């Protein structure tokens, strides 16, 4: 597991941390980390879709592209996933 918070996260292969449970909610989802006991909000349904598909793609960018996310929105997704990486919801694989 890498804790390196890379600035080019878009090119990195990511996955949901196996210690994390994700539950859909009307506003997006709640993620709970069984190890560090953190509860994290995923604040948009698209974020949840991408999070679930990360492991199937070679990089975050590939996951975004495969899910039809406009490139103009990629920077905001990169920033959201950086924060999710900090709270250990997602990790590099």
């Amino acid at each position, binding site marked *: 597991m890498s804790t390196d918070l890379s600035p080019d996260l878009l090119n990195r292969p990511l996955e949901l941390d196996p210690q994390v*449970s994700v*539950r859909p*909610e*009307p*506003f997006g989802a*709640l993620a*709970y980390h*069984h190890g560090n006991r953190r*509860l994290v909000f995923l604040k948009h349904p698209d974020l949840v879709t991408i999070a679930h598909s990360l492991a199937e793609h070679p990089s975050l960018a590939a996951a975004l592209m495969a899910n039809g996310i406009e490139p103009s929105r990629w920077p905001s997704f990169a920033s959201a996933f950086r924060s999710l990486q900090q709270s250990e919801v997602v990790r590099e694989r």
Partner: protein
Amino acid sequence: MSVEPLVDRLKGGLDAPICLTWELTYACNLACVHCLSSSGRRDPRELTTAQAKRVLDELRELQVFYVNIGGGEPMVRRDFFEIIEHAVAPPSGAGRIGVKFSTNGYFIDADTARRLAALDYLDIQISLDGADSTTNDRVRGAASFDTALRAMDHLTAAGFGPFKISVVATRHNVPQLDRFKALADGYGAQLRLTRLRPSGRAVDTWDDLHPTQGQQREIYRWLMEHGENVLTGDSFFHLNALGDPLPGLNMCGAGRVVCLVDPIGDVYACPFVIHDQFLAGNVNDPGGFTAVWKKSALFLSLREPQSAGACASCGAFDACQGGCMAAKFFTGLPLDGPDPECVTADGDTTTASPVAVTMRPRPAQDHTKPSRTPVLT
């Protein structure tokens, strides 16, 4: 989107709890003077193994993240492992439910510790209310300090990993906060410090045990200093009136994002309000736990915006939310007024509730063993 609207969403309630407390039994080998559930004797109506598993299946369906299992002493139950394994290691294909369970450690020997260490998604909270046997045993009973430490030794030897040491802050142990931290660090454990509530047997011991105004400030300073390294179960949000907020959601989750299932399946708004006024239903009612969570009139009302009442004119209300519902209720105070441990200048209630003990509400369940009436010396 900022965090505030999301916390407001939580105040409005979720379709399923984030977590819930499940007291598996009222039976206990100890008789702590502040027991939140007045435990001691087993209740003959206790849920059976099959009923308990059915509740877990329902919680799995609802995608509840974890259950806080307690009691009583949950390990008294002979089906303890069967129940927790049904949660954390379910039949293939079914989702897991994390388990954190609180225990006094009496039943953790070398073998049990190894069995516990082999389970994933399981966390243990060993209860300790003093950093030495004198302070601890006065509240938890003779030899309970040594029992807890022996359990921690077994968990360490079994390679369980960072278990939790769970301390309820009292007037007698607030001066020991650094010692608790050192004890936890020495075990590679994590300290969990939670707020005493005047619930269960603490209805009668609250006035003697709850921290003084000066100690409230000390707890706040100490928690701010240690940040997320010390767990609090989000229980000290009444202290946020003192300054920057403590880590956590800082709201009352009762009936909104958490609740209590008691040993006979009764569902209450939170673990600290075992009283008819906060009883929402039973897991064996038609529709089960799910119907109670989604439809009970009590829970729906708790998800409505709550009145600030006498606190409305206080500048600290947004920070402290008026404090803890259970603390107010069992000290005989109005629910829409200040917490009995309100830390603002206006709410200096110093030591005792103005309501005499005899005039305060009594818990709905009392399983205290008559032969072992706890005595606070």
